[in-house]
C-alpha cells in the first residue's frame, strides 16, 4: 500500500469533529492499525482465545461472555494497581496532555489526545465500577461496553506507544502508558492482540529472542561480525557464548544481532569489550534484552524476562550488563527488581576496568552500557580518536523509556561528545525528558501500519529536520533497537539525508585499539574521513 506523500500527510486538522466522541465510531483506516494476532502465537504461550481473525471482519470471534470477562478483568485490575484506579478517578480533563502526544500531533484524531484515549476506558469503568456512573449513565460520562466500544478501545490501545510524554505534563502524573498497558491486558483476555507483538512474544518464549534466532544462527551472526571487524581493524575479536564463570553477562536486544544499523552497534561493543579484555559472555538463551511481553500483559513480560536472571545464575556471573534498548530498560529498571528480587546470587556491580561501584544498580545488579562506557571514558581508560567520526554531524534522540522511565540523559551525551566532534542538540522541548517518541514503540513497529508510524514519528522528524537544516546534521544517534529499526524509514520520508546510528557504533569507530591496523573505513565499510581515496 502506497503511503501518502509528505505534503499530503502534513495537512493535519486538529479540530474535533461535530459529533460527540461517544457518538463517533472509529474508522479503521488501512495503514493506521496492525494485523490481528495469529492463533499459533497465542497458543504457544497459552494466552486466551487463540483463533484466526481479522480486524476488518465484523466478527472478531470473541468468547460468548466477552463482556463479563472484560469487566471482571477491569474490576480485578483496579483493585491490584493503585495507579490504574487513581488515574481512572482523578482526571479533571484540563487538556494539558492533549497536544503532547505524537499521534495526536501527527494525526489530529481527538481520541489520540491522551485524556480522551483514557476516557474510552474510563467511561466503561464509570459504568461498571462506580455508583454515579451506573445510575447517571452518560451524563456522568459512563457508557455501555458494546462491541463497537470494545473495537474502539482496541484501535486506540494500539495507537499509543506507552511513551509517557503526557504523564510528564499532567498535574497529577496520570500516566497513559499505565492505562494502555492495562487496557491491552484486558484486550488480551479476549485474544485481541496484534501479530507484530504476539509473534515476537511466542518467538521470544521459545528461542529467547523476538526474532526467533536459534543458537547456531546467533553464533553465525557473530562469526560474520568477527570477520568484518578483522577486515576493518585487523583485530580478531573472540566473543564467547553461554560460558560459565564469566564475570559479566551481556544482554542486548536481538535486533542488534540481526539488522543494520543495529548490528554496527553490536560490532562497536565487540571492539570495546575486546580492547578492555573484559571477562564477559553472551548468551544464546538470554538473547533478548527487550520484552514484547510488556506490550501484552505484565505476567507475560515477567515470563519472558525470567530467563535473564536464570541464565545469570546458571552461568554464575557476577552481574549483568545491558545493551542499547529503550523499553528493555524501562522493564529492567522499573520492573526487574520487583519481579525477580532479591537478586542475592549476583554481586554488586563493579567495573573491572575502573573499579567504580555502580551504586545505583547495587540491588538488581544490572548496569546500562552507556553508564559503563561513560565511566570508562571519564577514567581515561579509552584511547579515542573522535576525528574518525568527523564525517558525522550528530544529534541525539533520547528514547522515551530511558528518558522518562529512568533519567539516563547525560551518560549517552557524554559518550557522544567524546567520540565525535560535531554534536548538536535538537530544540529543548523535543529532547531529554520532553523527548518525542519514534512513533513506533510498544510493538507498533510493523509495516502494515506505516501511515500511523509516519504520523506518530512526525514530531521527532520535525525536530531532526530543524537541526538538519540549521547545522547540517546527517546522523541521528540513539540508544534503542526499535529506534534503529524505525527511524531510518522515518528519516527517509520526512528528512532525507539523515542516517541512524547507535552510540556504541560511534565508540567502535573512534576507539584506537592496541595492535590495530591503519583503519580506512568505519564499521559500515564507508571510508573514514580523509581516507576516501584509499
Amino acid at each position, binding site marked *: 500500500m502506497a503511503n501518502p506523500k509528505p505534503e499530503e500527510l*502534513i495537512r*493535519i486538522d486538529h*479540530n*474535533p469533529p461535530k459529533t460527540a*466522541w461517544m457518538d463517533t465510531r472509529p474508522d479503521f483506516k488501512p495503514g493506521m492499525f496492525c494485523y490481528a494476532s495469529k492463533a499459533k502465537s497465542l497458543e504457544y504461550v497459552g494466552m486466551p482465545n487463540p483463533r484466526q481473525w481479522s480486524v476488518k471482519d465484523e466478527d472478531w470471534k470473541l468468547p460468548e461472555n466477552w463482556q463479563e470477562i472484560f469487566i471482571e478483568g477491569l474490576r480485578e485490575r483496579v*483493585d*491490584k*494497581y*493503585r495507579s490504574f484506579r*487513581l488515574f481512572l478517578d*482523578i*482526571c*479533571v*480533563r*484540563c487538556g*494539558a496532555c492533549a*497536544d503532547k502526544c505524537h499521534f495526536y500531533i501527527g494525526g489530529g484524531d481527538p481520541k489520540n489526545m491522551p485524556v480522551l484515549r483514557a476516557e474510552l476506558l474510563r467511561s466503561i469503568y464509570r459504568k461498571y465500577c462506580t455508583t454515579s456512573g451506573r445510575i447517571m449513565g452518560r*451524563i*456522568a*460520562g459512563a457508557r455501555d461496553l458494546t462491541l463497537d466500544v470494545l473495537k474502539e478501545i482496541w484501535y486506540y490501545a494500539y495507537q499509543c506507544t506507552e511513551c*509517557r510524554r503526557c504523564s*510528564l*505534563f499532567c498535574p497529577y*502524573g*496520570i500516566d497513559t502508558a*499505565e492505562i494502555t498497558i492495562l487496557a491491552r491486558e484486558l484486550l488480551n483476555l479476549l485474544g485481541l492482540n496484534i501479530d507484530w507483538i504476539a509473534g515476537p512474544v511466542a518467538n521470544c518464549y*521459545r528461542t529467547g529472542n523476538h526474532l526467533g534466532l*536459534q*543458537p547456531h544462527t546467533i*553464533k553465525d551472526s557473530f562469526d560474520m561480525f568477527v570477520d568484518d571487524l578483522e577486515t576493518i581493524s585487523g583485530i580478531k575479536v573472540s566473543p564467547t557464548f553461554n560460558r*560459565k564463570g564469566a564475570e559479566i553477562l551481556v544482554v542486548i536486544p536481538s535486533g542488534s544481532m540481526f539488522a543494520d544499523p543495529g548490528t554496527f552497534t553490536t560490532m562497536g561493543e565487540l571492539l570495546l569489550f575486546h580492547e578492555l579484555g573484559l571477562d564477559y559472555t553472551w548468551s*544464546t538463551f538470554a538473547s533478548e534484552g527487550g520484552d514484547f511481553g510488556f506490550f501484552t500483559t*505484565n505476567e507475560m513480560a515477567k*515470563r*519472558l524476562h*525470567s*530467563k535473564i536472571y*536464570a541464565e545469570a545464575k*546458571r552461568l554464575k556471573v557476577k552481574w549483568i550488563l545491558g545493551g542499547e534498548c529503550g523499553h528493555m530498560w524501562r522493564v529492567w529498571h*522499573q*520492573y526487574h*527488581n*520487583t*519481579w525477580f*528480587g*532479591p537478586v542475592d546470587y549476583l554481586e554488586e556491580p563493579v567495573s573491572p576496568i575502573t573499579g567504580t561501584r555502580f551504586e*545505583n*544498580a*547495587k540491588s538488581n545488579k544490572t548496569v546500562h552500557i552507556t*553508564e559503563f562506557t561513560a565511566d570508562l571514558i571519564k577514567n581515561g581508560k579509552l584511547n579515542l580518536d573522535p576525528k574518525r567520526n568527523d564525517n558525522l554531524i550528530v544529534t541525539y534522540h533520547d528514547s522515551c523509556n530511558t528518558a*522518562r*522511565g*529512568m*533519567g*539516563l540523559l*547525560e551518560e549517552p551525551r557524554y559518550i557522544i561528545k567524546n567520540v565525535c566532534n560535531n554534536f548538536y542538540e535538537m*530544540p529543548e522541548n523535543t529532547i531529554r525528558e*520532553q523527548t518525542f517518541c519514534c512513533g513506533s514503540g510498544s510493538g507498533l513497529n510493523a509495516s502494515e501500519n506505516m501511515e500511523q508510524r509516519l504520523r506518530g514519528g512526525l514530531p521527532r522528524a*520535525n525536530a531532526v529536520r*530543524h537541526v538538519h537544516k540549521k547545522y547540517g546534521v546527517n546522523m541521528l544517534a540513539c540508544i534503542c533497537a526499535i529506534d534503529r529499526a524505525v527511524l531510518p524509514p522515518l528519516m527517509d520520508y520526512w528528512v532525507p539525508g539523515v542516517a541512524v546510528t547507535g552510540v556504541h557504533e560511534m565508540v567502535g569507530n573512534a576507539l584506537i585499539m592496541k595492535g590495530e591496523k591503519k583503519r580506512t573505513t568505519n564499521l559500515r565499510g564507508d571510508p573514514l574521513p580523509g581516507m576516501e581515496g584509499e
Partner: protein
Amino acid sequence: MGLLFSFFTVVILGVIALVGVRTMHLQYFFGVVIPYLAFAAFIAGIVYRVLKWARIPVPFRIPTTAGQEKSFPWIKSNTIDNPFTSLGVIIRMALEVLVFRSLFRNTRMELRDGPQITYGSTKWLWMAGLAFHWTFLIILTRHLRLFFEPVPFFVDILETLDGFFQVGAPVLYVTDLIFLGAVTFLFLRRVIIPQVRYISLASDFFPLFLIGAIGGTGVLMRYFLKTDVVGIKELMMSLITFSPAVPAGIGTIFYIHLFLVSALFAYFPMSKLMHMAGVFLSPTRNLANNNRAVMHVNPWNYPVKAHTYDEYEEEFRDKMKSVGLPVEKE
C-alpha cells in the same frame, strides 16, 4: 448537553434554597440540618475514597523521571524532578502540590507553514489554576473568622493583606476578584478551545458553575446585599459547638450561599475534585527513582511459568553442539 445540564442543576439548587427559606421558612433545615449532613458526607466520603485508594497495592515503582538520574558523582543528577531519596520525593511532591510543577512545563503545539511544528511555552492554564486554587484557599481561610472567637491572628493578617488596596467599603478583597476571574477563565477556556470543549463532561462544568455561584453569592453578600454578619457568626459558632441555634434576620442570600457550599461539600468525594487528595497518592510522582538500588516489593507478585534453559537446550542441543556452543548434557 453537559454544560446546560450543569448550569441548570446549579440554578435549581439556588432556587431550592431560595424557596425553602423565603417561602417555606425552613431556616433550621437549610442552616443546620443540610450543613451538618453535607459536612459529614464530605469527611466520610473523603476518608472512604482515600482509604479505598490507599489499600490498593502499588505493584511497581513507576516514577515519571523528569531529569537526570543519580549515577556517578561527576554527573549532576536532578534530585527533585528525578528524586533518588525520600527527601527528594517530598520536595517534588511539595512543588507539585503547592505550585503545580508539572503544569508549569506546559507547552502549546503549533503547526505552521513550512511545514514546521513548534512548541511554545504557555503558562495561562498554570497561572489560572494557581490563582484559582490559592485564592480559594485564602478565601476559605478568611472564613475562619466566622468560626472562632477570638479571631485567629493569621486570619487578621490575611484580611489586612487581602484588603491592601483599601478600596471601597467594605474593603475590597483582591482574592475575590482574582478568584472570580480565574473561575471565569477556566470556564471560558473549556467552552472556547475546541479540543477542551470536546473532552468536557457534565462533571467538568458542574463544579465550575457551582464554585462560581458560591463565589458570586459570597460577593453579593459582602459588597451589595448587606447581610447580618453578627447573626451569621452566631449561627456558625452554634454549629461548631454542636448547640445549633438559628438567629432571626439573616438574609436569604446567605442561605443560598450556604446551601451551594453544602452541595459542593457533599458532591466533593464522589467527583473529580478528589484530585486534591489523589495527587498525593500518584505513583508516577510520589516514588523515588531508585529501583535498581532498592527493591520495591509487590505484595501480589506471584511465580510465573517460564521457559527454562533445560527446555531450551533440549530443543536446540544438536544445533548448539554443531557450532561448538557449550551444553549441560552431552
